[in-house]
């Protein structure tokens, strides 16, 4: 089965849905179902599109993109299913977004990547416009545009130096042509910043607060879960197979470390539940990119998986909670879980996993991260990670205790059975993977090799 | 087994001896003080009369803990006294006359008395106990620092061992003069002599822990007080004045130490309890520590 269908079907359905608004939602669901089905059936390999392979327009399906596709599509599907009500108006946009997301994960071409980035970006602006906070969306729009503009600029510079846009060829070309690292610093930095805007890295991410602070369950899961994962994976592929950081690696590392620290500290200082979660998400994405920048692909992917699952649970439940109680002040949400124990359980498991406590998946991830960092002898970085995860643990525990134990009257909210089931399954998954991770680690084992294989084969395997 | 039974009998004898000795010397000292104040003073056996009179009186009881505490107090003190060597050869449990036993078994007695006093329900008793404990915290630490110097220097914590060491190498009173002074101040605190008798303070808190006692409980507590005094003064004699090789020597040293303490007591007023703490934690503790460092870490 050709992976291009993963992009083509949603795009096609998007056009169809414009013709008849009535069928938009069913079309979205069908497209998602098809995509999920396809993801589990496509086989690995390099697929060229329309005979443009000499220009490098091709799709790469390896273990890395496969895992990404599975996770993203499944979560996308579940997000839409569990938020049917909010989807109505946005069906077409979501279809486009789906195409963009799949494209980002599959593409093996830097320019196509830009195109998909724009598609995802535009659909993201449209999705966030549903928050009815035009200023925040505008802010996002401006920054996203600046970001993709910078990416494009960097891309052009890179193309002028290397003469290729195929991701697999860039690195070999640089080596072949012996391009000095100082020349490469600017294009890579521009691309880094461009992607950094979408990946919520510190100085470029002021849009996140405005967007996620007022987001409902659908928007927040899409932005903080699905899109963030996609961008992180894309970023990860670029960092591990394309970018030669060289002289800018110090700047990059500082940016990432500060992102992490700032996210956790800001979350610590926040009093609203959505604010806490969004800052936490920023810190997490900082950590993910940091791992990629250090070449730790396996822990990074594990973290991405853990992150999207727990973010799904946290943001979905928070969204429903805020909808039901009409407030997101933690102080006035006290004790809400005492009336919604199952939901509370899922939320608790997710946050304990994020903190990285044993018996939950997050712990395995944390252990993996630290083991890998220490095998690189990264003493300072690992100390920093421990410090920030202490801060993270503190505010999450504070949050949990407040949400479980009330002082005054308790607000109530209703959650659909479907949401309950899905979050519970995810929560149980976190527990199961927290105890028994062998299948996952086995399947991740080959990822770095396959990524490097593509380069070694110069994109022609 | 029979050895232990024998030791226990000797121990009881020691306790009885200690009681008799201290009661007599206490009586004599009352006379000494009387003479010092240009009085005639009571008979030398006055203390015995007082105690037996109290024992024979029909007392009141505030409940079982009130009685139980008294028994525990006097029993604990008696048990402590049973370990006390009198001379370097006259000791009930040879080899077990460890210094720490005295410190901690003495505490059982104190605890029993404190418990009984608080159990009487009189707030003045509780205040007295509070002051007694606070005072204990004050004098005990400098004293213990001096004692660890002695134990470390002599290499044993057995009182007979320390005695023998002194008989061979000279008294600690001479070789550790600072510690001797500090320990003497602590002794005044232990004995509850002025200026450290805040926890009795008859005119302020109506004799503190003793406020509710009369009759046999009071009598037994007097017995306890006498034996406790015996233990404390003997400790001092054994630790600093070379102990004694025969009983006459012991009696002489004992009498001198107790009389001097008593005379000093009669020349002083009374500290407030927080002044007691500050007093002991200022110079005595500092000097004791300095001496310990000088002697041990040299």
């Amino acid at each position, binding site marked *: 089965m050709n992976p291009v269908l993963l992009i083509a079907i949603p795009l096609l359905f998007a056009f169809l849905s414009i013709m008849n608004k009535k069928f938009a939602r069913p079309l979205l669901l069908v497209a998602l179902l098809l995509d999920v089905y396809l993801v589990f059936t496509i086989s690995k390999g390099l697929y060229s599109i329309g005979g443009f392979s000499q220009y490098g327009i091709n799709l790469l399906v390896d273990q890395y993109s496969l895992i990404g596709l599975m996770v993203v599509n499944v979560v996308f599907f579940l997000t839409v299913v569990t938020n049917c009500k909010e989807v109505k108006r946005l069906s077409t946009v979501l279809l486009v977004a789906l195409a963009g997301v799949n494209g980002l994960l599959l593409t093996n071409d830097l320019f196509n990547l830009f195109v998909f980035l724009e598609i995802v970006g535009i659909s993201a602006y449209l999705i966030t416009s549903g928050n009815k906070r035009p200023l925040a969306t*505008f802010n996002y729009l401006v*920054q996203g545009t600046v970001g993709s503009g910078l990416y494009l600029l960097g891309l052009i510079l890179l193309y002028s130096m290397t003469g290729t846009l195929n991701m697999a060829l860039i690195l070999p070309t640089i080596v072949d042509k012996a391009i000095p690292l100082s020349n490469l610093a600017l294009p890579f*930095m*521009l691309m880094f*910043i461009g992607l950094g805007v979408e990946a919520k890295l510190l100085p*470029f*991410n002021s849009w996140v*607060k405005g967007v996620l602070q007022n987001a409902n369950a659908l928007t927040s899961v899409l932005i903080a879960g699905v899109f963030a994962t996609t961008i992180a994976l894309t970023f990860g592929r670029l960092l591990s197979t394309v970018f030669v950081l060289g*002289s*800018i690696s110090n*700047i990059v590392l500082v940016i990432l470390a500060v992102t992490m620290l700032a996210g956790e*500290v*800001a979350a*610590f*200082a*926040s009093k609203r539940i959505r604010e806490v979660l969004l800052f936490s998400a920023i810190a997490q994405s900082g950590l993910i990119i940091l791992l990629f920048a250090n070449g730790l692909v396996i822990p990074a992917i594990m973290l991405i998986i853990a992150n999207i699952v727990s973010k799904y649970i946290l943001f979905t439940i928070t969204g429903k909670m805020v909808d039901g109680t009409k407030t997101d002040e933690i102080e006035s949400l006290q004790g809400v879980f005492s009336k919604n124990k199952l939901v509370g359980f899922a939320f608790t498991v997710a946050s*304990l996993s994020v903190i990285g*406590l*044993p018996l939950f998946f997050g712990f395995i991830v944390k252990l993996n991260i630290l083991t890998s960092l*220490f095998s690189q002898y990264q003493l300072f970085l690992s100390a920093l990670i421990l410090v920030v995860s202490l801060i993270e643990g*503190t505010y999450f525990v504070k949050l949990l*205790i407040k949400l*479980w134990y009330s002082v005054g009257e308790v607000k109530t909210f209703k959650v659909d059975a479907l949401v309950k089931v899905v979050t519970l399954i995810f929560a149980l998954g976190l527990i199961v993977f927290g105890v028994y991770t*062998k299948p996952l680690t086995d399947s991740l084992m080959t990822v770095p090799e396959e990524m490097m294989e593509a380069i070694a084969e110069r994109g022609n395997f | 087994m029979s050895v*232990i039974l024998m030791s226990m009998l000797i121990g009881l004898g020691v306790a009885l001896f200690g009681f008799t000795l201290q009661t007599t010397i206490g009586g004599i000292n009352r006379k000494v003080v009387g003479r010092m104040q240009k009085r005639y003073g009571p008979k030398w056996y006055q203390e015995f009369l007082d105690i037996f009179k109290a*024992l024979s009186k*029909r*007392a*009141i009881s*505030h409940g079982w803990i009130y009685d139980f505490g008294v028994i*525990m107090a006097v029993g604990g003190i008696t048990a*402590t006294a049973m370990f006390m060597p009198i001379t370097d050869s006259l000791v009930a449990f040879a080899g*077990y006359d*460890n210094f720490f*036993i005295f410190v*901690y*078994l003495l*505490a*059982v007695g104190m605890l029993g008395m404190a*418990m009984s006093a*608080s*159990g009487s*329900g009189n*707030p003045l008793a*509780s*205040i007295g106990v509070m002051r007694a404990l*606070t005072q204990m*915290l004050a004098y005990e*630490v400098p004293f213990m*620092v001096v004692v*660890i110097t002695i134990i470390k220097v002599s*290499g044993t*914590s057995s009182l007979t061992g320390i005695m023998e060491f002194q008989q061979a190498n000279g008294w600690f009173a001479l070789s550790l003069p600072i510690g001797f002074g500090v320990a003497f101040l602590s002794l005044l605190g232990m004995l509850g002599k002025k200026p450290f008798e805040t926890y009795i303070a008859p005119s302020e808190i*109506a004799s503190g822990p003793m406020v*509710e006692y009369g*009759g046999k409980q009071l009598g*037994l507590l007097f017995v306890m007080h006498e034996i406790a005094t015996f233990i404390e003064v003997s400790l001092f004699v054994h630790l600093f004045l070379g102990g004694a090789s025969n009983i006459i020597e012991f009696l002489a040293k004992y009498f001198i130490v107790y009389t001097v303490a008593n005379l000093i007591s009669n020349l002083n007023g009374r500290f*407030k*309890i927080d002044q007691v703490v500050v007093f002991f934690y200022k110079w005595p503790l500092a000097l004791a520590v300095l001496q310990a460092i000088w002697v041990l*870490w040299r």
Partner: protein
Amino acid sequence: MFSIELVVLSTLLAGVLAYIVSIKLPKLGSYLTILASLAVFSVLAYFGFNNNLDAEVNLIPQFVLFKTSMFGLYFAIIVSFIFFMVSFFNPYFIKDYKYPAAYNLFYLMALAGTIGVFFASNFITLFIFFEIVVWTSMFLIPLGKKRKPTVTYFVFSTVGSFAMLYAVMFTFSITGSFDLAAISVLSGKSALLVYILLAVAGFAKLGAYPFYVWLPKVLGKSPDPVSAVFSGGIEKLGAFIAFMAILRISPASIYLEAVGMYLQNYVIAIFGAITIVVGTLQAIRQDDAKKLLAYSSASNGGYILVAIAMSSSISLTGAMYHILAHALASTAAFLAIAVVHYRTKTTKISELGGMIHHMPLTYMVYLMAIISMAGIPPMGGFISKWLIFQAVINKQMIIVAVATFFGSIGSFLYVFRPLAALFLGQKLPKYKGVKEAPFLMMIPLIILTLGSFYIGVIPNQVIDFSNKVIAEFGFGPLLMNEFGIQGANGTLSAPIIASVFGLGVVVIAIIFFILPKSRKVGLMDTYTSGEFIYTEELLHYSADFYAPFERLYPAKPLISKVYAMIKEKVNELGRFFKYWFFTNKPEVTVLWIVLILTLLVWGDIL
């Protein structure tokens, strides 16, 4: 043969079972906790004493690895015993909890976690179980009166466990092994780093200075059985870690001639000493009986640290003995206060009085417990303190000695406060009709007291065991003869002391009963200088018990101000980031981008 993994897993399963049962029948679930902890304790004790515990079986492949050691067994038996004893209280407190089912689950999970820690064969297993204990016990705390201590506990425990994790990973990066023995391979600076980090972990869990702040908050505010479990059981994890850190790692450093030990050990001893003093001073001024006992736990942790730091046969035996004696005594004391709390709904000393007339047995239990805690014969605490003093004197650590003596005498002060004001004193009318502890609660109270008494009179078995333990660390056994323990500068014979004490009491009791019988009078018939007072509260001295002494030192320990400051600084930093980076103005972001690019270009040109 019985496999450790089976014990751990079945405890976890029992927890889940108890959870399911207690969704509908919380009380039945809490009875299950009794059964489960009894089973754990008896299996560990029976098979452990017969050297029959199996560490090889791996029911879940590749997950955790165990091994048996006398060291671990000693701790495991003590802690599972404490869990078992405390579990008798669960049925009475379960109805007060908001989430009774969760309580039963976490109680057994924490037990499983502690067992796992003590039998772990590598650091990863150790860390996993350590963290399990942290978060399961963390969720036990908010079931009580207050929620805030939970966070405090999490922060301090996590500081400890992260320090340990860092040490473990660091060791791994150097030696390439997670094995427990790997830390002893380290040398030089890296050994020092691991030493410090593991010591921090031990300090944090044990509640030693400067991490003792969580103890009073957590133990003072959590449900009563939880406080007891923390003080007697979970806190001992810290001692376990400290043992490993201090004895297994030997970083090269300065050898102090004067005290015959290495500098780092001396520093730990000094920290232990500070813990003793601070814990004692704070315990003296507490009005809440549970907080008071919590500070006393901190102070006793200081003794354990001092003893471990001295690293000699006597001191280590002292440490082991103190762990046992303090576990028994402190649990008994906490449980006694729990009974009072259960019956009167308060633990404030100033609100209580005369409880002895309502609950004499509880009083006796508390009395025996404090006798042990104050180190008075004939209870277990005396022997451990004696051993520790022997070692302190032997090492001539004068400064530390001052602290240990201060703590020892100070403990009379603070343990006496609840005794005098809560149990004794006037019988307050508002507690009329308060009853003695229910039957099930009495069982652990009596067993703990008898245990404490037994180890105070016949120390031989415990010392035999601890000799085997310290042999694992390469120390020679402590010598014993029929009657006594051979110390550095003297012999102690616990049976003789106990029997002499008994003889003294018997003799005096006989004299007492021969003398004329006393007339019974009420508590209000007491000397008041002729004044008439009819209100019991006015004749009850309980508030500000040690007021004159308390005046001499500040009420709030300095270190808690430091922690408050750190928290405030983190908050400030968060607000700083929010202000400068998360604005609603896109131009600020663009400014940052431009700045970074400028920096980059500038850097390249220059």
